């Protein structure tokens, strides 16, 4: 009976209507918007010599693009392996973990030793430690039995508080001079992107994206959940571990450049799903990266140059993202 009714409803709404979403078109429009925003970012409100302004702003633009791409791809990958749309690496405390790794390294090795190390070497060391910690922790949380999504979320949020408090405690305990070394590294923001790290993080993010693109079909299958994916012949545990490693690398890169941003990933991934109207990673991955870059670059242009608010982009993202999160919860998207 109900099947008949539904069948009639199905014919009433022709298939073509439901497949109208044209991911290719959406992607092109997004790319065009990113180009426009980038042009505005480079030129709006510039005074003085172009030969100074352009390279300066171009570096910043590159930084925003790297961060935007890293956060977007990391979030999409993470949501795929956890088979839901509300968990993100930062909601589970992953960027707080990177901050803690950084603090612990300064604490253990001492500021003097660190100052002697080249920044890139130090950063790569942090990434390695971070990947190890993340794989152990998240492998444990998501391996084994299936846990309720809400439990995972709450554990993640509390874990974030724990990691931040632990960093805070170590920072208070450590030698004031070493603390100064650390604050130099920690107080990255959208306005003070670390130039020395830009090259190496860009390379890491590019590698991560290449991996994700290469595995896009496997990712489509992983999104079906453990049992379906295993049934379809994907070696689930190994595939998820690989993805988690890549996520950890991407999060490290973005956190090192601009510090923790809790809700950016949630925001851009969900916007990308809606705009592209498909789940397929060959569309979603580039789409989310473009949405994210557009959001950061256009946001920076509007806030900084149009409204004259400096360094508030991060706060605005937290605000909008937090409200979106509540809306998702209220609408029951967190199944």
């Amino acid at each position, binding site marked *: *009976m*109900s*099947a008949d009714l*539904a*069948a009639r409803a*199905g*014919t009433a*709404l022709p*298939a073509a209507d*439901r*497949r109208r979403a044209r991911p290719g078109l959406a992607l092109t429009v997004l790319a065009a918007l990113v180009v426009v925003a980038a042009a505005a970012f480079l030129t709006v409100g510039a005074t003085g010599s172009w030969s100074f302004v352009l390279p300066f702003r171009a570096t910043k633009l590159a930084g925003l693009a790297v961060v935007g791409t890293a956060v977007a791809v990391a979030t999409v990958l993470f949501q*795929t392996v956890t*088979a*839901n*749309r509300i968990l993100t690496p930062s909601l589970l405390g992953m960027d707080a973990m990177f901050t803690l790794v950084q603090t612990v390294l300064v604490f253990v090795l001492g500021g003097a030793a660190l100052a002697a190390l080249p920044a890139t070497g130090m950063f790569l060391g942090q990434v390695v430690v971070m990947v190890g910690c993340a794989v152990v922790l998240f492998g444990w949380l998501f391996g084994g039995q299936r846990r309720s999504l809400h439990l995972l979320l709450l554990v993640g949020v509390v874990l974030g508080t724990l990691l931040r408090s632990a960093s805070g405690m170590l920072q208070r305990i450590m030698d004031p001079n070493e603390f100064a070394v650390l604050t130099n590294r920690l107080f990255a923001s959208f306005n003070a992107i670390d130039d020395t790290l830009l090259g190496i993080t860009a390379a890491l993010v590019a590698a991560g994206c290449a991996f994700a693109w290469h595995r*896009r*079909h*496997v990712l*489509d*299958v992983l*999104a*079906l*959940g*453990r*049992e*379906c994916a*295993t*049934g*379809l*012949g*994907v*070696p*689930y545990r190994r595939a998820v571990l690989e993805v988690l490693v890549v996520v950890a690398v991407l999060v490290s890169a973005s956190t090192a450049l601009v510090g923790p941003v809790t809700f950016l990933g949630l925001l851009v991934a969900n916007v990308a*799903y809606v705009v592209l109207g498909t*789940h*397929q990673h060959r569309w979603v991955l580039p789409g989310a990266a473009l949405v994210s870059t557009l959001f950061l670059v256009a946001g920076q242009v509007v806030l900084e140059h149009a409204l004259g608010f400096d360094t508030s982009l991060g706060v605005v993202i937290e605000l909008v993202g937090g409200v979106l999160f509540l809306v998702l919860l209220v609408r029951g998207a967190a*199944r």
Partner: protein
Amino acid sequence: MIEVRGVTKRYGATTVVDDVSLDVPDGGLVALIGPNGAGKSTLLSIMSRLLPADAGTVLVDGMDVTTTRSDVLARRLAILRQDAHVGSRLTVRDLVTFGRYPHSKGRYTVEDRAHVERALDFLDLQPFADRFLDELSGGQRQRAFVAMVLCQDTDHVLLDEPLNNLDLRHAVGMMRLLRRATDELGKTVVVVLHDINVASCWSDRIVAMKDGRVAHDGPPAEVVRPEVLSDVYDLDVAVHELDGQLIGTYYR
């Protein structure tokens, strides 16, 4: 051929599957029945490498499921669990297309598309093919998952309570379909069923489990008998022959 050899699974102190050995030769529809907690679903999960066993081995066409590459197995054996659920927003056609993944690894060919359309036709799903799964009724979604599993086009198909959420008409349709898959396409189907009468009417062989062990095993005529069913379910079951079918009654 699926060979189960001394498989045991424990959760803490409780043994869910207790030293089960079972041969499923090629061809035929095997029904797995038994009361709740008898270990049917667990056994099916172990047979399909979704769950590791604590002891024993499972061989599919002579290959150990725990050591064989997962994608090789996926071309021999398909599994549908009863609580199939997908987080992302997929259309029915998208889901069914995933059944071709083990064969073409995401680069779908014209031949794959043909398989998908056939599976959609087979399960009466064409009218909903471009709807999202979360817009369908439970029964339609269940059929979409079955279509995906059939689209995987494997010799062995394991289904855990595929009749869940289906009304009478679709339940009968589903069993007829599984019957055709075995008779016409020569597949081997192992299906967990709750309704003893469905098992009696449609299967070639019934394996009855109780307390993690195989209690009885044989063709319907041997298993659908009052003393056997009463023993399996701890409930008085009378068996009548109606229109040439063995029907158990236990309602009062």
